[in-house]
C-alpha cells in the first residue's frame, strides 16, 4: 500500500519537477557568458627591417640595401599592415639607384614562422652617367614573403625575412628579392 502511494506521488509531482528544471535551464541560458580571455598578442604592430636586396630591369642587375617600415594591427594568428620601402644601391657597373615605395601587407603567424603577401607601388630612379639627369620608372606588383622569428620577447621579436616581388612596368617587369633582418613590436 505504501509503495502504491509513493508511486502515485511521484507521478503527480513529475510535471512540476520537469517545469522547475526547464526554468533553471532558461535562467542558465539567459545568464551572460563569461568574457573570453583577451588575445595577448592583439594590438598595434610596428615592423622595421633592413638588409641586402637584388633587382633586375632589362637584364641589368641592381644591388643594394633596403629599409622597410610597416605599421598595422595584429593578433596571435594574423596581421595586416601598410608601410614604406626605401632602397639605395648600384647596378653591376656602378649606376646609382634609389627606390621609394608604398606597401600593403598581410600575413599569418604559424608558430615562429610568418608567411604572407601583399602588393607595392614603387618609383625607381637610376642616375645617368652621361648626364645629370635620371632614368625614372613607376612600377606596381604583388609580393610574397616568408620569415622566421629568431627570438621573441612576448609581442616583440627579432625577425629574418625572405621577400620576393614581381613589379609590372609599362614595358617589362622588375623581379626582386631581399633578405631582411628586422624588429617587430
Amino acid at each position, binding site marked *: 500500500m505504501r509503495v502504491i502511494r509513493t508511486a502515485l506521488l511521484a507521478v503527480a509531482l513529475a510535471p512540476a519537477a520537469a517545469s522547475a528544471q526547464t526554468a533553471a535551464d532558461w535562467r542558465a541560458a539567459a545568464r551572460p557568458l563569461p568574457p573570453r580571455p583577451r588575445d595577448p598578442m592583439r594590438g598595434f604592430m610596428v615592423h622595421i627591417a633592413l638588409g641586402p636586396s637584388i633587382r633586375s*630591369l*632589362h*637584364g*641589368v642587375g641592381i644591388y643594394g640595401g633596403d629599409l622597410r617600415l610597416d605599421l598595422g594591427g595584429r593578433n596571435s594568428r594574423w596581421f595586416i599592415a601598410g608601410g614604406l620601402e626605401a632602397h639605395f644601391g648600384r*647596378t*653591376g*657597373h*656602378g*649606376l646609382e639607384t634609389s627606390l621609394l615605395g608604398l606597401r600593403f601587407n598581410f600575413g599569418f603567424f604559424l608558430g615562429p614562422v610568418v608567411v604572407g603577401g601583399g602588393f607595392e*607601388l614603387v618609383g*625607381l630612379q*637610376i642616375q*645617368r*652617367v*652621361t*648626364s645629370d*639627369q635620371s*632614368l*625614372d*620608372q*613607376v*612600377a*606596381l606588383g604583388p609580393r610574397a614573403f616568408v620569415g622566421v622569428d629568431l627570438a621573441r620577447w612576448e609581442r616583440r621579436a627579432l625577425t629574418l625575412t625572405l621577400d620576393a616581388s614581381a613589379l*609590372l*612596368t*609599362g*614595358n*617589362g617587369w622588375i623581379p626582386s628579392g631581399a633578405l631582411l633582418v628586422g624588429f617587430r613590436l
Partner: protein
Amino acid sequence: MRRPATALLALVGVLVMGPVLVDCGIEASELLCEDAAALLASCCPSLDPHALTCPDSHAACEAPSPTFSIEESRCLRALDCAAIRARGICELAAARAMSPGAATRPLCE
C-alpha cells in the same frame, strides 16, 4: 547610378595603374647604354662619361644619336676592364664622343 564606393575604387585604380601602364618608363636601350657607359668610365680614366651620349626616350625629336647601339651596349657589358683596354675600346669610344655620327668600326662585336 554608380555607387560612390565604386567610383572611388575606379579613381584609385586609374591613379595607381595609369602611370604604370601609360608611362613606359625606362627603355632597355637607355639603361643598357648608360650601364655600358658607366663601365667604360670606370675602365678608361681619361674618358669623360658626359662626353658620351645615350638614348633618351623623353627627349625632343632632335635628340643626338647615341654613342653605342644596343648591341654594342650588350657586348661591352660582357667585357671586363682588361679586355676593354686590350681591344682599344677606350680610344675608340673617345673618338666617337669627339665626332658623333662619324663612321667608325664597331666598338664591340
